[in-house]
């Protein structure tokens, strides 16, 4: 049994912690002293957090009105009847009257809500051309295939903005009128229609094509608006900073919703006397009723809401935290009982031994 030192080294594996699987390691162990307190602490923390969330959500006021106009539900039914058939509908107006007995604290936001509207349908949500919307002139005249059948008009003109999402742009409009005293004059409440979209959307993601001779209309020359649109995209708003692809209503609409019931921000009420909220009195919302939803059983709602630190009213998170917190504590007790009984049993076993 002789062997030389060099030969020994030839095939001998390296003596490192890695190869010998001796890497220093931390081996945590789930013992009762960790698991049980964890359950109780988590439970208590969740209940506390849940209460906070629940109350902050509850403190938020919401006022909503379904103006779909199903027969016998207010004065929008006339418009709804007219819209029984296919788009484009007639220009029709209706109104929603309501009164506030006390101040609706501000800042107040005005939303429209659609139900049963599947913006998240895959075919719908891919039917857009982000390159076109980013203002690339070449893409403007060559909309992506995903936009079909809203890629080109029958005349062959490219549609800008193309696709089903753009074509189905929500086009009802609202104005809000306030009567301070009964019998007094109705004053229009200023609605701030800017700042309703994400900053990144209307400043980075959506861009108008470069102006041609200083005119946006010329930039869109050679394109056609989507079939449902009564006017071209560059006429969405008279404000040059809010028209074309960067029109905020349009940008908000293009950010498709995750669920078939969704709200989108229409306006903020934050100017003049209304910056602290809506004072008490009677109000009228004048609605230009254009958008057909009854065909697919959808509803249109108008919603006033104010905001807390957590955002809008949604009690779900608060309740969920309360439920989970309680469950944690319950499970903690169950585990404690099981553990104690097991310990006793073990002690008995040891005694027997």
């Amino acid at each position: 049994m002789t062997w030389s030192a060099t030969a020994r080294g030839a095939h001998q594996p390296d003596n490192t912690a890695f190869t010998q699987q001796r890497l220093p390691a931390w081996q945590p162990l789930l013992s009762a002293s960790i698991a049980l307190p964890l359950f109780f602490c988590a439970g208590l923390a969740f209940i506390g957090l849940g209460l906070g969330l629940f109350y902050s959500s509850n403190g938020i006021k919401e006022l909503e009105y379904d103006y779909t106009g199903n027969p016998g539900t207010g004065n929008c039914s006339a418009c709804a009847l007219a819209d029984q058939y296919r788009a484009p509908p007639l220009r029709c107006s209706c109104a929603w009257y309501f009164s506030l007995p006390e101040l609706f604290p501000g800042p107040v936001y005005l939303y429209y809500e659609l139900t049963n509207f599947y913006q998240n349908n895959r075919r719908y949500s891919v039917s857009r051309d982000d390159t076109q919307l980013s203002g690339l002139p070449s893409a403007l005249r060559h909309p992506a295939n995903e936009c079909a059948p809203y890629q080109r008009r029958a005349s062959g003109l490219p549609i800008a903005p193309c696709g089903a999402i753009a074509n189905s742009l929500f086009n009802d409009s609202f104005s809000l009128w306030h009567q301070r005293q009964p019998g007094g004059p109705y004053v229009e409440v200023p609605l701030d229609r800017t700042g309703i979209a994400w900053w990144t959307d209307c400043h980075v993601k959506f861009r108008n094509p470069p102006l041609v001779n200083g005119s946006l209309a010329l930039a869109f020359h050679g394109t056609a608006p989507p079939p449902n649109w009564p006017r071209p995209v560059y006429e969405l708003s008279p404000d040059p900073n809010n028209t074309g692809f960067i029109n905020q209503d349009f940008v908000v609409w293009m950010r498709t919703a995750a669920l078939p019931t969704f709200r989108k921000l229409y306006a903020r009420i934050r100017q003049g006397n209304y910056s602290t909220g809506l004072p008490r009195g009677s109000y009228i919302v004048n609605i230009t009723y254009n958008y057909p939803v009854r065909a697919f059983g959808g509803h249109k709602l108008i919603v006033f809401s104010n905001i807390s630190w957590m955002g809008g009213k949604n009690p779900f998170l608060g309740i969920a935290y309360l439920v989970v917190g309680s469950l944690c504590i319950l499970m903690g007790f169950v585990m404690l009982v099981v553990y104690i009984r097991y310990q006793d049993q073990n002690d008995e076993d040891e005694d027997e031994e």
Partner: protein
Amino acid sequence: MSLVESQSEDRQSEEQVRYLQANGRELNSKFGYPNNTIKTSRYSVLNFLPLNLFEQFQRLANAYFLILLFLQLIPQISSLAWYTTVIPLMVVLSVTAVKDAIDDMVKWLPGPLADMLLLSSSEPCGLTYIETAELDGPKITEPGLLPLHFSSGKVRCESPNNKLDKFTGILTYKGKNYTLDHDKLLLRGCIIRNTDWCYGLVIYTGPDTKLMQNCGKSTFKRTHMDRLLNILVLWIFLFLGSMCFILAIGHGIWENKKGYYFQDFLPWKEHVSSSVVSAVLIFWSYFIILNTMVPISLYVSVEIIRWGNSYYINWDRKMFYAPKNTPAQARTTTLNEELGQVKYVFSDKTGTLTQNIMVFNKCSINGIFYGGVYDKKGRRVEVSEETEKVDFSYNKLADPKFSFYDKTLVEAVKKGDCSVHLFFLSLSLCHTVMSEEKVEGKLIYQAQSPDEGALVTAARNFGFVFRSRTSEMITVVEMGETKVYQLLAILDFNNVRKRMSVIVRTPEDRVMLFCKGADTILSQLLHPSCRSLRDVTMEHLDDFAIEGLRTLMVAYRELDNAFFQAWSKKHSVACLSLENREDKMSDVYEEMEKDLMLLGATAIEDKLQDGVPETITTLNKAKIKMWVLTGDKQETAVNIAYACNIFGDEMDGMFIVEGKNDETVRQELRYRWENFHTFLGNLKCGCVLVLQAYALEGNLELELLRTACMCKGVICCRMTPLQKAQVVELVKRYKKVVTLAIGDGANDVSMIKAAHIGVGISGQEGMQAMLNSDYTFSQFHCLRRLLLVHGRWSYNRMCKFLSYFFYKNFAFTLVHFWYAFFSGFSAQTVYDTWFITFYNLVYTSLPVLGLSLFDQDVNETWSLRFPELYDPGQHNLYFNKKEFVKCLVHGIYSSLVLFFIPMGTIHNSVRSDGKEISDYQSFSLIVQTALLCVVTMQIALDTTYWTMISHIFTWGSLGFYFCILFFLYSDGLCLMFPDVFQFLGKAMNTLNLPQMWLIIVLIVVLCILPMIGYQFLKPLFWPIMDRIHLCMRHSLSPPTRTKLKHASSRRSAYAFSHKQGFGALITSGKAMKDKVFKRNSSPFKK
């Protein structure tokens, strides 16, 4: 199978017989034999890519993803961007390709030699000792002594095959035919000893050589886990199909009820005429989306894990055997986790349990016992380091490594005791050992069996030095005086005769026969005058047997010259007879070997390998059943079994089945079986069954198995290699357990191939077992580490990996299913396409790889100390169909939480600045971030061994996700490719929402806390987990192992070498001329 092999097989099917001519370049080139370059690698630089890709796409999983890719190219169906499948597929293919390339590069390449026919050598008498150490053990051969420059010689021989011990051919030279057999073939990889030069005719080259023909693995072994995985993947497919079906039906209904009326805003596609058509298309769309249920990276990850864990085996210093400079080696990288599930170990005996090193230990000469060691007071003592060795300095030719402790024997030799001299003379003459003397006085013996080597070495040290031999002479230096004995005949050893004799003419012109053999046989052949001596010697033999020594009796007979001449003639006739030659020969031999005068008996120690009893005790504790399959006879096997602790102290039952025919064996087995039930009851584990090969011959498989599996150990004696394999097959067939076969010799190959795992001991008997094995190492005791440490870890890691892997993909994929109910079953994905692309490849791959390469629940010391921890693997408790269903349920639960909590939270929800957050992109981001947090926490919970690397992998992956997020959603990238990266500004707008973090905390707690509870409660109800926890708690201070006491060895007599000897060859200098046929001595024909 590699291309090279298949090519050569194709050619083989055509080539039945091989013709070739010496120096006949023209003739030989017609046949297109391969040249002598060996390509053990599968690929070359050029063909690597196409060949490797072709092989990879033959795998079902890869082909499936290729089909998916084509599905995605159909615009009506495509629901995911093409790159979500292409990128993972590319990564998987390239990882596998790299692994294949590395595997291919480390292939072992032997030296440049071909199989050739030995024609002549430097040795005058033509004996050449060939050490084919790497292949089939040593042999001595004798070349045909043909002229060197023969050019008309033609050879007709068999086509290339992988049988090392078989070669037939005919050499035609000058009109004469010479029969060729495997003894004349020098194999590639062999070493020629005591020969300066030799001439040969190359027969097989390159890939045709026997070595290369043996290299290819004939069977591809698959683990139980592979089979389980295939079944599970099938289940997943069915599950996937049914989900797609449900969703397609849902889609049909939706399109009918809602989509139809929604056409104002979303018209149906051109080719879609009805909701049914749409539903059919959506079935495939969902098939694409939900494909992550069958994760593409599953198979490649499994391979990587096994590969890594195999390297740990190669790297293990505790399995490195310094004296031979051999590390353990995992030759197969696909069986690791099976090492943690072994239930039956089938072991060879010689060379596996024992060292196959024989040491001359004691002897009895003329009724006097030599070899005991006594102290000054005359008490018997054990041999230790300090025991004084006998001084052999008087003998210049003594072997310095030989040690002996009894001085009385040397004194007897020096005194000139006649019987002692005759005893050693007979030992130095009666053998088939070859000697080599390169330096004057430094003899090296080449012995076929280690027993013989030990005896000749002993004789050499006591002054009877066997110096050299030719086919007719044996030169012996007797007490410094050189004498030449004329070798008249060798009566060779075989397993029936169990003895060998030589007949020599002494320098004094006496004809003497020296014989050695098994005591049972030889004692019958003695001259009646030695009866009293025989009785004394038999007593000594019994003593030897009790000590477990291998014994031989030595005797001689002085022959009358005339008698010998007469016998010699008979012998020649018998040699030449064509029918029943063997029987006739043994009749002739018997005539000679009688009336022998007893000289004495030798006792040789067959040393056990280090740590064998401890290893077997540990394996027994791990409830691994040990079966010893040996070709030896029963007594030897039983005694080795005692020495190895297969019979523990507590085991009281040893049942020997001795029946010689079906009926008796059946009765015995039945009796045992009933015994187990009536008397022993719960003691059944304490028994060992000893079987003879006969028991296997009949139609008794089930009865045998039923009884044998009740026992803790089984010893099967007298097994042929084929029977060994049959036993393994038998257990494999009727028991759904993992079997492991361990052996070192060519006769173990079939068993090694048959078992689920084959382990080769790279030792004395050549490399054939090793070449066919899946794991090799030098020492039997490494088996303990291989199974209890590496096997257990590999199994645990694989199980953790699989559980986690399935879970994470279920949790990931099933969210799409729930979303379908809220998105009009439109095959809308929940996540952003980049997340789908990277989820398995980038975000979650490293943590799970880290887990499955570094995790260890208890360290190696505890694994070895508590072999009980091995138990769960044997019953496959950590990953089975039930565990898989648990993963599925867990995944479904997680996906429900992952979908509905964000959904409830963002429903009609707005931010603190009044802008809505219920848009699709925010929802995606929330769900995917929550998912990643959940799976990261889950793996953190599963990890029990947190190395630095685990920390980096686990938390790094999560951190990396956020970095990637900011990169993928960055302005620049999105503006460059607005269509591909649509999530501009997402990270910025959503990650600062309190809702988002509240959702994540809630989801993580909902998904993880129940698992913490489960993990906390599990050990309370499952004791083995409790034990593991106990070990983990004390992982720093395992108590020092008390050394196992060496069980008293009780072994009995044993006779001789296992193989038929070379006698015929040695004497063939003259015998060859008359002999046309010579029988192959095959180690397989025991």
